[in-house]
């Protein structure tokens, strides 16, 4: 086990990316005393100054948020004609970006919820962080349908509510399903995130030196005092939330996919869409967490908490979903061929040989082929390769949404209505602005909230586990 080639830089102190033969593989590196865990995680938020990189990144992100605000206002005062959308391609960038951001949100819920349900202890280092990406990505996702409806001040008409006009939304319409799914997702992921943070916010409160911090964190943590009777309910609540969120992971992208599958456009009207979208969402989400976790662990000195094992596991899951995606791409082409319908085959021929051919080949390469390098351990332990795949796969997933939406729409049944789609500068600036919003929220989170779930990490280090059995108290050690 000693001859595994690993990158020297990040493994100088600690490597747990392989299973030790003797004893248990530690989940936290270095000195894992309870106090040191608190010191390290709280230290990030308590330091008088953040790393210089943080300020630079925040400045860039904030300027992009400014750009986003300007673009949204420009659109509100002028109209959706500013975008590249036209009569043939009615769903342009806003819906591409919406599906893209909803997808990114999924990994956080998957890591927190599904891995909690399966009691995977290694998740404790990254779950908070991944949940944060969920909440922020849903915020970005929600923005796009709201501006795409054209009159955002009436977007609440999507929600069924009793009103004096006596009208109700069409319950058979995917537009209402979307409002239900995304509204639920935003509420639930926010609540799950906050509930998970309560004990750590209490730790921030107890260490705060200024009155303002003490008050704010004190209110946010609801006056948590670590009572065993509360822990008992808290753990049960977290498990219930996780189980419900697991259903949501499978439900939200499936609902989003019905926006397409319920339509009759070739390339959309497919039964494979719900699992296809869910896998794509999870794939892009895991790539995002991979791409964010590596810089964050360097920047804030969290190498002992977000360990090589985490990166390694994330890479393996990304590989799994990449392979499923490749399989689905192949199946889509096969079914189009097998259908024997020219209309059904046209969008697939257009993907590879039409005017947007480079996007069609791009998604096959970025999403299906490129991540296959994760079969090799040297790739999974090399931070540069991991970050590169994290970025390129997200690019690939964004291109996939473009391909699904634009290629199917721009050439449908009737050649006389065929029309190309060209995005405008406003489209690109709004997209860039949404990244700015995401990164601004993420950077603020890194600086002011507990980035790693301290109470959960403490429960899995040796000091937190009872050493002998008292009334069957010592739990089975799972998740290794």
């Amino acid at each position, binding site marked *: 086990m000693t001859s595994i080639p690993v990158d020297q830089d990040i493994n100088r102190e600690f490597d747990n990316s392989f299973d030790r033969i003797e004893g248990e593989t530690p989940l936290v590196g270095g000195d894992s005393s*309870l*106090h040191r865990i*608190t010191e390290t995680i709280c230290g990030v938020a308590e330091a008088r100054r953040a790393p210089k990189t943080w300020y630079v990144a925040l400045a860039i992100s904030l300027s992009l948020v400014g750009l986003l605000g300007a673009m949204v206002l420009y659109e509100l005062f002028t109209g959706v004609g500013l975008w590249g959308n036209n009569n043939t391609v009615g769903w342009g960038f806003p819906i591409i970006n919406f599906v893209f951001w909803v997808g990114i949100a999924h990994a956080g819920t998957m890591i927190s919820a599904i891995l909690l349900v399966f009691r995977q202890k290694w998740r404790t280092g990254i779950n908070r962080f991944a949940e944060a990406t969920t909440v922020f990505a849903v915020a970005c996702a929600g923005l796009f349908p709201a501006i795409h409806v054209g009159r955002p001040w009436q977007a609440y008409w999507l929600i069924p509510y009793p009103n004096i006009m006596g009208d*109700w939304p*069409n*319950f*058979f*319409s*995917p537009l*209402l*399903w979307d409002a*239900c799914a995304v*509204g*639920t997702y935003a*509420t639930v992921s926010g*609540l*799950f995130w906050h509930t998970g943070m309560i004990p750590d916010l*209490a*730790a921030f409160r*107890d*260490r705060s030196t200024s009155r303002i911090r003490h008050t704010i964190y*004190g*209110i946010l943590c*609801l*006056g*948590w*005092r*670590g*009572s*065993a*009777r*509360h*822990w*008992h*309910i*808290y*753990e*049960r*609540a977290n498990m*219930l*939330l996780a189980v*419900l969120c697991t*259903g949501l992971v499978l*439900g939200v992208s499936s*609902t989003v996919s019905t926006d397409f599958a319920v339509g009759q456009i070739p390339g959309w009207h497919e039964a494979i869409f719900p699992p296809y979208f869910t896998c794509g969402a999870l794939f892009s989400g895991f790539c995002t967490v991979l791409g964010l976790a590596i810089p964050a662990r360097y920047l804030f000195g969290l190498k002992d908490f977000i360990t090589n094992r985490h990166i390694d596991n994330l890479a393996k899951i990304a590989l799994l979903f990449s392979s499923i995606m490749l399989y689905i791409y192949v199946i889509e082409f096969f079914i189009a061929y097998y259908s024997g319908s020219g209309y059904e085959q046209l969008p697939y021929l257009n993907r590879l040989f039409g005017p947007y051919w480079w996007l069609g080949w791009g998604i096959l390469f970025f999403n299906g082929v490129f991540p296959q390098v994760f079969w090799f351990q040297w790739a999974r332990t090399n931070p540069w390769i991991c970050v590169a795949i994290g970025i390129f796969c997200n690019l690939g997933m964004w291109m996939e949404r473009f391909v699904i939406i634009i290629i199917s729409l721009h050439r449908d049944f009737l050649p006389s209505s065929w029309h190309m789609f060209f995005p405008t500068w406003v489209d690109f600036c709004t997209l860039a602005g949404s990244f700015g919003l995401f990164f601004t929220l993420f950077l603020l989170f890194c600086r002011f909230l507990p980035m790693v779930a*301290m*109470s*959960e990490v*403490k*429960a899995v280090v040796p*000091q937190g*586990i*009872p*050493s002998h059995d*008292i*009334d*069957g*108290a*010592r*739990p089975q050690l799972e998740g290794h």
Partner: protein
Amino acid sequence: MSENVMIVSNATGPELFGLMAEYPNVDSLLAAAKRVQTEGYTCWDCHTPFPVHGLDKVMKIKPTILPWLSLGGALTGVLIGLVLPLLVNGIAYPLNFSGKPYWGLPANVPVAFPLFILLGVLSTVVGFSLLCGLPKLYHPLFTVKRFKRATDDGLFLVIEAADPRFDVIRTRQLLESLGAVALDEVKD
């Protein structure tokens, strides 16, 4: 223990809330909790920075009713998701959407499912908050300086003065004999 000479509270001072003992590790806390439980105390609690596995069994904490609250909320969500479209589109104002039936189960699943999750989660969160009595921004324990470590690395056991078996001297002796590294009187 000698540095922690305790003055038994007089009637004039603030009322005694209870005794707070700190234990050095998880094992001694579990052992102490087991003993306190067998001694017959009822108004007592442990305060730890993380959920200590097995502590709820040792303390004989009754299983919480929270899952039933969640289930109730979730089922209400399903009911709303199925019945609201029936009332609105099916009965009150029937509309023909491309010849589809006025109400159909499959078409309502995408509405009923998110509502199942949404109300399930809301009732879980509200239930957690109510069952724990949170938010509660003040608690007598917050007046003890040492208690700040309950969210860091301190493992505490608190026996309240409200307990019928509470006796300042005997309870203190009990907590000390169980290996407490520090003992504080908590005033309200």
